[in-house]
């Protein structure tokens, strides 16, 4: 049996709550296949960090000061149409999540989330960027 070493995917975590970013970071770090690369506290930082670090994936909160998740998603995709962005929403934000999907987000996770749920969604993203 051949053991192929696939490198862990790097992730940019975007959320204005330190608490949420810590939770997601821990989930990713414990998975063994995702590496938390960097964090951003608002949409503007997210766009800047994405440009600078080019992570494999992004988890994006919807509601943040400065620049919200939908606008940041648009800006990142405008610069990099192949970006893989997963929205983090709470219950009742159906319309905003759908707007994000229309803007190009690939999937979404809903708070409060479990490690299983988060990893299932991230695992489901395409291995190669289209």
């Amino acid at each position, binding site marked *: 049996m051949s053991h192929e070493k696939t490198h862990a995917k790097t992730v940019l975590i975007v959320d204005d709550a330190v608490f949420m970013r810590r939770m997601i970071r821990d989930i990713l770090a414990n998975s063994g296949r995702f590496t938390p690369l960097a964090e951003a506290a608002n949409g503007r930082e997210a766009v800047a960090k994405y440009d600078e670090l080019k992570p494999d994936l992004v988890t994006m909160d919807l509601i943040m000061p400065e620049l919200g998740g939908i606008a940041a998603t648009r800006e990142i995709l405008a610069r990099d149409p192949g970006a893989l962005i997963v929205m983090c929403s709470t219950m009742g934000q159906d319309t905003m999540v759908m707007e994000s*999907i229309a803007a190009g987000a690939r999937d979404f996770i809903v708070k409060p989330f479990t490690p299983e749920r988060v990893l299932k969604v991230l695992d489901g993203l395409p291995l190669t960027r289209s």
Partner: protein
Amino acid sequence: MDMSKYLGLFVSEAQEHMQSAARELSLVAQGIRSPEPVNALFRHFHSVKGMAASMGFAPIAELSHAAEDVLDRHRGTGGALDRQTLEMLVDVVDTLADMIAGASRGEARSLPGGESLIARIRACLEPLASVDRRMEPRQEIAAAAPLREAARHLAHDAPSDEQRSADPEAAPLRHACMLTIDPATELPGPRAALSLKSLARLGVIEDLAPPMDQLAGPAFDGRIAFTLVSHVTSEEVLAALQALPEVLNTTVTVAAMAPLPGAPSPEVSADGGEELPTTLRVPTSSLDRLFDGISEMIARRGILREALRGADRDAALASLDRLSESIEMMRDHVMTLRLLPFDQVVPRLNRAIRDVCRITGHSGRLDVVGGDVAMDRSVLEEVLDPLMHLIRNAVDHGIGSPAARRRRGKPVEGVIRIDVARRSDRIIIAVEDDGLGMDLGLIRRIAVQKGYATEADLARMSEDQVLMMTTIPGFSTAGAVTAVSGRGVGLDVVRTRIEALQGHMTIRSWSGRGTRIEMNLPPSLAVMDAFLVRSRDDVLAVPASSVAAVQQIRPEDIRPSHTGCYLPVDGIGEERSFIPLVALNEILSRRDGRRETTQASLAACRAPLSILTYDVNGTRGALAVDEIIGRVELVVKPLGAPLEQMRAYSGAALLNDGRVALVLDLTGAMELL
């Protein structure tokens, strides 16, 4: 997942949010008028809700959620919160702070006080739900617009490899598909949207039921049906459906062959058609309120009748006042029903941008701020054409080509931003692009070349005035005439349309940064703010938007000359400029076939004269009248054929005393002379 290790972080961050919330509340309490504190408060409660839910602290999450709902209601009001709401939110912040402290001590999850506060909040939100009639249709419409956009994106996604490799010569198949979103999923609407997006790689999605804008709503039961037009086989479609996460019960049937390529294919129209809807959906509470209003009017009319019979004049006048109040309230109710949010036209604008981008090869997107600002449907209808014009201009000439943008270090995708706002009682719509700005030097050169202005004139003009020269008919700075614009038919048309709406236009531009064109419009075209003036026995109306000032002048101030009468304005001594003064009597005398000059009309006057100074299309002047009766709001009706051919008048209005007042069109009237 063991959440206890996050407790410390949760507590410190949640406490910070509550402290910030308290600060924002004090800003609002001080009467600071800005939407920011309300937006910030919303975010604070939203964050605490999310964190508390993650920690499993349901009572904290519920109370935060209730507060979030309250603030969501108030987000459109520009930062104002009434006393009661403010006090309630202060209670919420205090209670939440206590609950968070309790959580840090590891106390029982439920804290007394939380439930009753939540009940109090819900009780407050309830009447808001029925009174706030503006929220219901507008929210529905506001949510629908971006979702209809989403439908367009989904329906027209780029064909994937699978689709392209299938035999392109054969006609595509129409697969009738149905699927059910797993009820256990957290957000069924977005899950359905993602499923559709994934399938759109295979072909074009049509006939989506329920439509996209209903997927986010509470009525969505998880079942969707649609037609996938694609070259791939049914087996492949079924396999794709079954591979979708959180999707159950998939079926695929092939209906009929799709029309052959070359035949006109039906438009996948997902934006609701060309016109603004001619029917309205209104909450039944609005109709109830109208009915109540009418009943009240009838009752007060009865009281008035009685008072008149009784010959008590004071009582009769008082009843008449009460009746007038009812009538005005009814009018306001009906006017509110006519309000449409700007969002209504956004899909059309997006489509225009995409079309022009395709033709020009430029890349641009639309950002709308203030899409929820509502205006009378008459204004929205009329402003659509000028707006489309400005947007096409912005894509074609404003944002610049991707190459030009890259050279300037700008992102390839240009941004066209529309700002909609209400300022006092006007509606301001601005179209701004982030391109290279207008070339002032070029504009000046063309102006001199075409003879619109001399060097000396240009030296005296402000930048704004130079920019406004681009609205002169025939003025075009485009190097070549393009399919989209550049024939010199552009800004002049926009300006004329806007001024015909009793609005005005300003242009600002920053070299290398972009251009902003602002339209200042009345809130309604059905009702006009006007000055009533008298000339002999005639009463006429002059639109207030044309009037710069109302003054009394002394007859000695008038300067007669062989070309007419003039009035000095601005400056002193050598710097004075003069504007022409015309008596309304002279204008109307033309109508009667006489010729009574302004000089003759004013010669006999000793007393101070009432004049209106106006500024229309950059032309300034003064109109002398026998009397300025007052300033009123009039319901103006168009004159209709054949009277509309009279250039001097732009409409007619019924006055309170039953007389008809013609609305003076100053430009047209001056042409008569």
